[in-house]
């Protein structure tokens, strides 16, 4: 399944080293040690607080699955609102137009700015939906014990954690546009209700990923096969 001291190339100039201590035990929990959640120091389970940074220690946070679900479900509801309601309100020579996230992108494609449209589409539609689908899959795998490859799930989870912040792009663009375009009836841009919903979607999904104790997925190593 896995070999000791195996090295393999990871990125362009980095190689990765792999060492395991299979002879002892697979999980740190069984050895009576746990990792400090803040400073990543290995602590004995007999201690209540980390010896280095004094953070409270716990082997597993079982409540984190529920917390993560709660945040995720709220985010799903808000994401629907963020896509249905207009996100900006543009007044151009007296004509008021409401733009939703999708119609904004459609407008960009229409005016021929394809690369910009791709960036905005990735940041405001693809990333939030991927994040929500990915997190739901991950949480389902823990809650309903679905035998999906844990390794692929974990890679997906790392991607979600990293990519999530890019959704902020749309909010930055809105704030810059609103601050610049304010010439009354002639030309005026204002934010609309979906902006708040979208900001909350980003916050809640990031929190949902951060709060989850990923070690819970790996505790069921014995019950399901883990090869790939």
């Amino acid at each position: 399944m896995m070999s000791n001291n195996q090295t393999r190339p990871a990125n362009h100039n980095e190689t990765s080293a792999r060492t395991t201590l299979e002879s002892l035990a697979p999980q740190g929990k069984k050895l009576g040690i746990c990792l400090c959640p803040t400073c990543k120091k290995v602590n004995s389970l007999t201690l209540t607080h980390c010896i280095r940074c004094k953070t409270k220690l716990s082997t597993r946070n079982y409540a984190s699955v529920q917390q993560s679900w709660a945040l995720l479900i709220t985010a799903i509801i808000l994401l629907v609102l963020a896509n249905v309601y207009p996100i900006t309100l543009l007044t151009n020579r007296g004509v008021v137009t409401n733009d939703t996230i999708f119609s904004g992108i459609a407008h960009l494609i229409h005016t021929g700015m394809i690369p910009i449209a791709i960036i905005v589409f990735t940041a405001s539609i693809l990333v939030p939906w991927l994040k929500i689908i990915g997190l739901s899959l991950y949480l389902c795998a823990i809650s309903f014990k679905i035998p999906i490859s844990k390794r692929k799930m974990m890679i997906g989870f790392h991607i979600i954690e990293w990519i999530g912040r890019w959704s902020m792009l749309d909010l930055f663009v809105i704030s810059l546009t609103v601050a610049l375009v304010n010439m009354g009836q002639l030309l005026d841009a204002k934010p609309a209700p979906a902006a708040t919903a979208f900001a909350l979607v980003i916050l809640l999904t990031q929190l949902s990923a951060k709060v989850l104790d990923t070690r819970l997925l790996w505790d069921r190593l014995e019950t399901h096969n883990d090869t790939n």
Partner: protein
Amino acid sequence: MSEAKSYKAVILCRSCDLVIRKRALPSNVRALCPRCDTALYDTPYCSINGLLALCITALLLFLPANLLPVLEIHFLGSIRTTTAYEAAIEVWVQGYWVVGLAVLISAVIAPALLILSVLLQVLIVKLNLCSPFWQSIFLQLLKKHGLLSQLTMLEIYVISFLVSAFQLSDFSDVYFGMGTLSFTLLFIAMLFLQREYNLEHMWSYVHDEQ
């Protein structure tokens, strides 16, 4: 305590709790968890003087980046300019304070706090301040570092004023100024600062009292 010490050669994966024997790595090599591919540790190369230089650069760039306008548009003879701070406040004033606050934190407040936090950490390590007062400050700064670096989103902001420039060029003339240059340079300085900074290495400077 003695029990914890005997586990010095062993680390745990923070994502899947696998027990892994820690061993020395050559430079430019990163240890990955064999089970879930989480990056575990790399060779701590973290030059304190280099960090100090990057901190001072970032601090010097921070003021022009946030005081000079990042974007300027000319529309039918009228000129509008904005800075990152003003843009956030403008959205806030119009009633969307959640959006305003999010923009303000991720583009202005978090980068400022991150620079100051790293500067203070570097000074504490460099001047070897080991009185309990300074050590407790050092501890608090290290604990907050992960959050601060996650909230700092300068790279996204730089992309976003390019996107806005393209969108606005549809109906007006868009100009970049010294503010845009400073902001981009600030982003580059912060990028290298965060690359150079190694949280695990900084933790090793904490003096264990017990």
